[in-house]
């Protein structure tokens, strides 16, 4: 995000006149609305906001947001965003990508925008499938996923976007899902973070991977299968009857029962968004034996790439003039008399 004068806008101001072309019921609609609802709250200026995307269903996103938008090529959105940010660091840049775009063909660029810490919000819509190309398994598809290219079930071990982002040196890691009421608060935290803010958003592809995330997003199971990371608060779930604690003997996490609200007695961890070790444990926490960790898992800023690079450039320029004639005549010269 940037320190710009807040602008008064409404959700309507962030809608374009373009017909939205996602499949009816696609999780992308909910994410779009959540973003359009969040932007006015941020005081964002449409003229200073840029959405940059790669290729895939999620990457159509910029066409539907009334700001500057660049629908680029497959996997490379982070590199375009880096150029935009270096050319004009005043711009508030959102990178929209998917599990295929950001973790497969563009994994390299995802790594480097995070490693460099370019001040952007990176929203990775993870539906664990290739939607736009009609349902092939993706790098985040679970083992055994049946698809046109894996009729016997996929055998690849899936990538974990948050673990990847943290491993790449990420300083802001968050997780949410398309219809979550908490998605706007996660987006706001991402926007508030100075640096590359990585947000994985589970997204329901209703055509090729329908209800894939139901085991933790469906209403009846949600409470028991989601743990929301909130800074300074204990990692509780199942209406406070369970918690995440550290097994000191094995240096791993465990689920503990919380009786009569005595989470302290049960040894439940208090979440600290600046604790990188807890962040590693939470993003690696296997779903099934554990609930799905959601919310702002890690948030510990350090100087951004553009401030470092452009600051260095400014220093290099100080006291020098852009005298081209002098530059051309540099070094050892000789004169041929007329």
């Amino acid at each position, binding site marked *: 995000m940037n320190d710009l004068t807040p602008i008064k806008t409404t959700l309507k101001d962030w809608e374009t006149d373009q017909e939205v072309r996602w499949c009816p019921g696609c999780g992308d609609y909910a994410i779009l609305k959540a973003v359009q609802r969040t932007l006015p709250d941020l005081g964002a200026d449409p003229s200073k906001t840029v959405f940059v995307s790669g290729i895939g269903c999620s990457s159509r996103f910029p066409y539907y947001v009334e700001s500057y938008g*660049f629908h680029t090529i497959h996997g490379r959105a982070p590199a375009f965003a880096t*150029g935009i940010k270096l050319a004009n660091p005043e711009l508030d840049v959102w990178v929209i990508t998917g599990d295929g775009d950001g973790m497969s063909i563009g994994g390299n660029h995802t790594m480097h925008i995070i490693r460099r810490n370019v001040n952007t919000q990176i929203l990775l819509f993870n539906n664990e499938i290739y939607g736009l190309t009609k349902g092939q398994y993706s790098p985040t598809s679970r083992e055994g996923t049946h698809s046109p290219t894996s009729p016997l079930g996929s055998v690849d071990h899936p990538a974990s976007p948050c673990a990847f982002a943290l491993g790449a040196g990420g300083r802001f890691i968050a997780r949410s899902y398309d219809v979550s009421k908490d998605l706007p608060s996660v987006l706001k935290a991402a926007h508030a973070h100075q640096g590359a803010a990585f947000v994985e958003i589970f997204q329901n592809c209703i055509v090729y991977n329908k209800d894939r995330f139901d085991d933790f997003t469906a209403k009846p199971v949600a409470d028991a299968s989601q743990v929301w990371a909130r800074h300074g608060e204990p990692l509780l779930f199942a209406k406070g009857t369970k918690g995440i604690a550290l097994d000191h003997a094995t240096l791993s996490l465990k689920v503990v029962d919380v009786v009569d609200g005595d989470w302290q007695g049960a040894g439940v961890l208090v979440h600290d968004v600046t604790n990188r070790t807890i962040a590693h444990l939470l993003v690696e926490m296997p779903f099934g034996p554990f609930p799905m960790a959601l919310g702002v898992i890690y948030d510990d800023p350090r100087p951004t790439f553009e401030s470092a690079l452009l600051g260095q450039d400014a220093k290099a*320029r100080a006291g020098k003039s852009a005298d081209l004639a002098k530059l051309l005549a540099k070094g050892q010269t000789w004169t041929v008399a007329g």
Partner: protein
Amino acid sequence: MATALIDGPDALTGGKDAAAAPEAVVVRFAGDSGDGMQLTGGQFTLSTALAGNDLATFPDFPAEIRAPQGTLFGVSAFQINFGSTEIDTAGDQPDVLIAMNPAALKTNVGALKAGGLIIADSGEFNKRNLEKAKYEVNPLEDGSLHKWQLLAFDISALTLQAVKPFGLGNKEALRCKNMWTLGLALWMFDRDRQPLIDWLNGKFAKNQVLADANIAALNAGHAYGETAELSGPLRQVHVGAVASEPGLYRTVTGAETISYGLVAGAQLAELPLFFGGYPITPASSILHNLVKLKEFGVTTFQAEDEIAAIASAIGAAYAGHLGVTSSSGPGIALKTEAMGLAVMTELPLVIVNSQRGGPSTGLPTKTEQSDLYQAVYGRNGDTPIPVIAARSPSDAFDCAIEAVRIATRYMTPVILLTDGYIANAAEPWKVPDPASYAPFPVTFLEEPNGPDGTLLPFARNENGARPWIKAGTPGLMHRIGGIEKNPLTGDIDYSPASHQTMTDLRKAKVDGIAKSIPPQEVTLGEPGGKLVLVGWGSTFGPIHQAVRRARKRGLDVSHVHVRHVWPLPENLGDLLRGYDKVLVPEMNTGQFKTVLRDQYLIDARTLNKTSGQPFTIAEIEAAIDETIGA
């Protein structure tokens, strides 16, 4: 005149006609890649330039950074052709070969002119090095070099002796060999040592002992020449200064002039310059140069790969900078998809390709012109991109400015073709006056341009160019992307009519650039006749000299050298039809020949060379003779 000493090699070696000064001399320094031959050559070039000679150089080094010592593939060479007349090539055959070891002798002596002079470091011709160079018998002793004048002495021992007072270790002391050799070369060609001494003092400012040792070696080499003159075949030669246009001169390489030209272009367009690059031989030196020019509004970004390099440059262009990226063939291949996006979104961009031998990794440090198809045709879809080719290091300055002009005026990516030879070769350059170039300031769209305050990002001006709208401009929010679009609003529209219209508009825009480029001139000769040699890029020197020589012999041959490879100058077809025969010498298998045949239905013939080495004048002259009879 490039290669022949008018008096033959005797002028150098004290033969019968020794009194006459030669017009031009070709010297090749060859040694192990660790011997500092490129540095020696570079400094000799500088002293040559300061002596007022015209010159051209050809650095020829292996792809390996430190190839195993003494091996044949580890030989690094630097050739310089200098004279009192106009020099356009690095010379066909050396008059003098300085060989620092057996491998250097073996790989280079074949090129030496018959009767030419070999200066060899006999100290390095030991059993071990002879074996590495696959010599069974020492060639300095078996008479096998009888075709040439041989001067062998123990440069290693002489250097050690010269630097002894400085107490260096044996290895460090031997590193001064190249300065000893340079000292000898400076004596041979009657050059002032002082600029070299100043340079050494600067280079080793933090280690005066090393500076002093190198200077001592330089002086010792020089003194050796003076003494040897009395007895050996060595004699001093003075090559007179060339009669040049009055003005201020310096030496430059193509990598330097391209960097300066890009900076100049950005100034003329009144834009900040963003350069996204990824290291690749031989293109990296452009990035090396630009990082030092921040005060000219330059931002450089070393990206994670070639794709990110061009993508960042396109992103910067969307935000209002002059976006530039540069690479060599393999890297350009990776950038191809993004080039298509720049065509589709109609953003200005300059893509510099320092060509090298291909395909694939090919010959990383050698030169070739085999990326012409890639530049003109090599993308998916109907994706026209203008292509400009530089003919020499000096020419690359103007070409870079021209690339910026076209990119910003027509809102299009532009490919600037150069090659490994131009990038690395040095030549004297008459320093241009930046004020003599007409500015072409860019105007960004600041207000809605459509009816009733609407924005039409793809409305076109008289050049067929859309407006450049800087992301961040208040109120002009719009979306662009790689999907086919409505011809005015730019909204997604892949209807049949829209794609037909947009394809036509993109083609017409690039075709229309031909109207803004100068008509093709005859570089040398007449606008019609028996034969024309059509060249592009770095073949300029050998073609020009070959045509000049053939014309001197009365042959009806002309030279046309094309800068605007795409679109071609409007008059080129008519011009070429005025000749009975068209011959296209290229360092590829005939790519420009194919373009000419396709565009003009003319019987263009090809002359190829793909050895990683530039054409020699003799090769082209022979082809002229073969085509129209000697």
